[in-house]
Structure formats: C-alpha cells, structure tokens
C-alpha cells in the first residue's frame, strides 16, 4: 500500500534509525527518547491546515517534521549538551534552530527546537527537560479542548506553572553543579 511518502519511506526510516542510534550513544543524558515518522493521517491533516496540496512534494519540502525526534533530559544543561552533540554529527546539516528556553513563548512553552537536513530530508528535533515535557503534555490536552469556559484563567495558571517548573529546573541544575564543583 502506498503511503503519502511514496518511495521515500524506506530511506526516511533508515535516516531516523541511524540518527537515533547515534543519539543513544549519549543515553546517560536522556531520560527518554520519542521518535517517529509522521503518520499519513497526521500529514494529511497538517497539509490541509497549512493549505498545501496533499502530495509527496508538500510532505517532503513544505513540512519539516515528517521525521521527528523528541529528547527529554533530566537536567537543563543536558538539553544544550545534547544539542551540541547532535550538531556535531558530520552527516547533519542544521537548517534552523529556535531556543524557546532563552526566548520563552508567551504561553510559557519552553524547549529547544532544531530543523536538520540529512541526505536531503528534513528532520525535526525537540529537546526539553522532564518538567518542560510534562507541562507541554498538559498544555496540549488543554489546547485540544475547544469549549473552555475560563480560557484566560487557564492560560494564566498554565503560564504560572511553566514559570514555577522552570524555577525548579534551574534550582536542581544549580544544586547539581554546586555538588560537581565541590562547593556543596
């Protein structure tokens, strides 16, 4: 059965598993890794949402997260360590980077995003801490509910939670660093 990716699917799966293998070398820095080729259904939906024709060209050139990896780390510094490690792979070309940790989104969202090109295919990488990941999961649940009675209050409270989680992330990273540098 033909997928929306046509003949490219096999190559894409190889690229994904190769990158994941290399990332797994540094497994001590990751809490867990999620990765996938975006399903046909999700792809179709995204094409329609972005008003692109539903074809091979759109999914390979118009949309950048057909191949997606999310790395969740225990500590904040690990996000940047893993980012540098991925960028240093010789077969990886970095197309775009967005640091939503140094530039927090208005709703409180924090993560490190990268769009890579490997053998001509786009790969999207998201790196974040456990705290950021649990927040994003809740926010995703909330944004999927269309009939929210107290939308503004919910958004305000989600932002507060994001900022409190960020504070904990920094405190824990600080404690870890102080111990490692023998100051505590």
């Amino acid at each position, binding site marked *: 059965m033909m997928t929306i990716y046509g003949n490219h699917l096999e190559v894409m799966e190889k690229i994904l598993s190769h990158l994941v293998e290399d990332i797994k070398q540094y497994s001590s820095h990751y809490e867990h890794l999620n990765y996938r080729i975006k399903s046909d259904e999700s792809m179709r939906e995204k094409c329609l949402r972005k008003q692109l024709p539903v074809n091979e060209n759109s999914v390979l050139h118009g949309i950048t997260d057909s191949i997606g990896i999310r790395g969740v780390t225990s500590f904040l510094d690990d996000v940047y360590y893993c980012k540098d490690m991925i960028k240093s792979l010789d077969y990886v070309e970095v197309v775009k980077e967005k640091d939503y*940790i140094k530039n*927090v989104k208005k709703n409180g969202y924090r993560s490190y995003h990268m769009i890579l090109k490997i053998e001509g295919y786009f790969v999207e990488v998201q790196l974040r801490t456990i705290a950021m990941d649990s927040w994003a999961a809740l926010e995703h649940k909330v944004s999927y509910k269309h009939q929210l009675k107290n939308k503004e209050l919910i958004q305000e409270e989600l932002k507060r939670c994001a900022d409190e989680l960020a*504070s904990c992330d920094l405190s824990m990273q*600080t404690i870890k660093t*102080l111990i490692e540098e023998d100051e505590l």
Partner: protein
Amino acid sequence: MRLLLAEDEAALSRALKTLLENEGYEVHIANDGIEALQLVEEHIYDIMILDIMMPRLDGISTLKKIREMQISTPAIFLTAKGEVEDRVSGLEVGADDYLCKPFAIKELMARLHALHRRNNQKGCIEKGNIRLDMEKEELICHNSIRLSSRECRLLSYLMTHQKEISIDELSKQLTCDHTRMRVYMSYLNNKLKSVGSSFIVERKDGYYKLKEG
C-alpha cells in the same frame, strides 16, 4: 475607585462629593470619626480623605484606629493652616499626605492621583530592566520566572540597596545560615540569567551586592 470622605462641614463635603464624582470616584461621606470607622468596617476603600477637626472622634484618632485594624488604605488629611502639630501627628499616625485648607481642587486631585499611582506599584520593585512582583513572586525581564518566597525577599533586598549588604545582616533577616545563603544566591544568579538579565549577585568579603554584569 471608591473614596471615603470624612468631613463634618456639610457644604464642603457636598461640594467635594460632586467634584470627585465628576472625576469618576464613588464617594461615601462620613460626618464624623465614628461614622468613618463604621464605613471602613463595612466597605473596602481605595483612598480616604479625613478632616482633622471632627466631632465625636477627631481625624487623627480615627486614622490611628483604622491603622490598628491593619487597614493600609492610603489616607490624606485636610488640615487647618498653621497647625504644624496636626500635620506631624497625622503623618506619624499613618497618613500618606496632607492638604491645608483652603485648598485648590486641582491640587487635591493631583495628590489623589499621585497616591493611587504609588499604591498600585507597591507590589513591584524595578531596577534596570528587571521587575520583581513581590505579590506573585515573579521575576520579569526578557522572560519571566517564579521565585520561592526566600529568593524573592533576598532579591528585593539586593534590588533596593545600592551598596553591599552584609551576609550576617541577610542571614538574620532570612533566618538562614551562610551556606544556605550561598546556595540561594547561586539560584538567583542562574534565574537572573535565565530571564535575560545582565545583573549578577556578587560576593566579596562578607558582603553581597547586585551588580550590572
């Protein structure tokens, strides 16, 4: 904005009420100190204007009792000219400002605006490009973050003092030892950096100081 006007001179209070209502205030009138206390117990006011000379309970005693009720609503006294004692007592008992009779309406309005402006900013401290919201325990610069209660108080001391603060003094204020203090200052430094501020907390010879990095 709701305003309490405690003034026993009926003609004056009626005139003031009309003028203040024109400015958008909701005005409650008390004819003496006892009435003022009753109103303050029932309602929340944004600002209070109190005449000093009032029957049954004078303005100074009234405000003293109000402040004893832990009500910190800003208050302006209307005083007779020349009575330095009144002005001093008024301020000492907890008034924020005073105005001598006869006064220009424009001046009363200007002082009311100034009080309101100051009161709204009570919960926020600003220094350079950082803002610390004491109530929300929120640090804001390029990004925002929430701080713990202790971090918030520590940062507020650092922001409101231009010179160094001794570690001993801070330890006393926050009831924590020097080692814990160091950890909290490290937290603050990392959090200041995370919101995009160039301020750093510097430690030198038993003192801490907030410096522009």
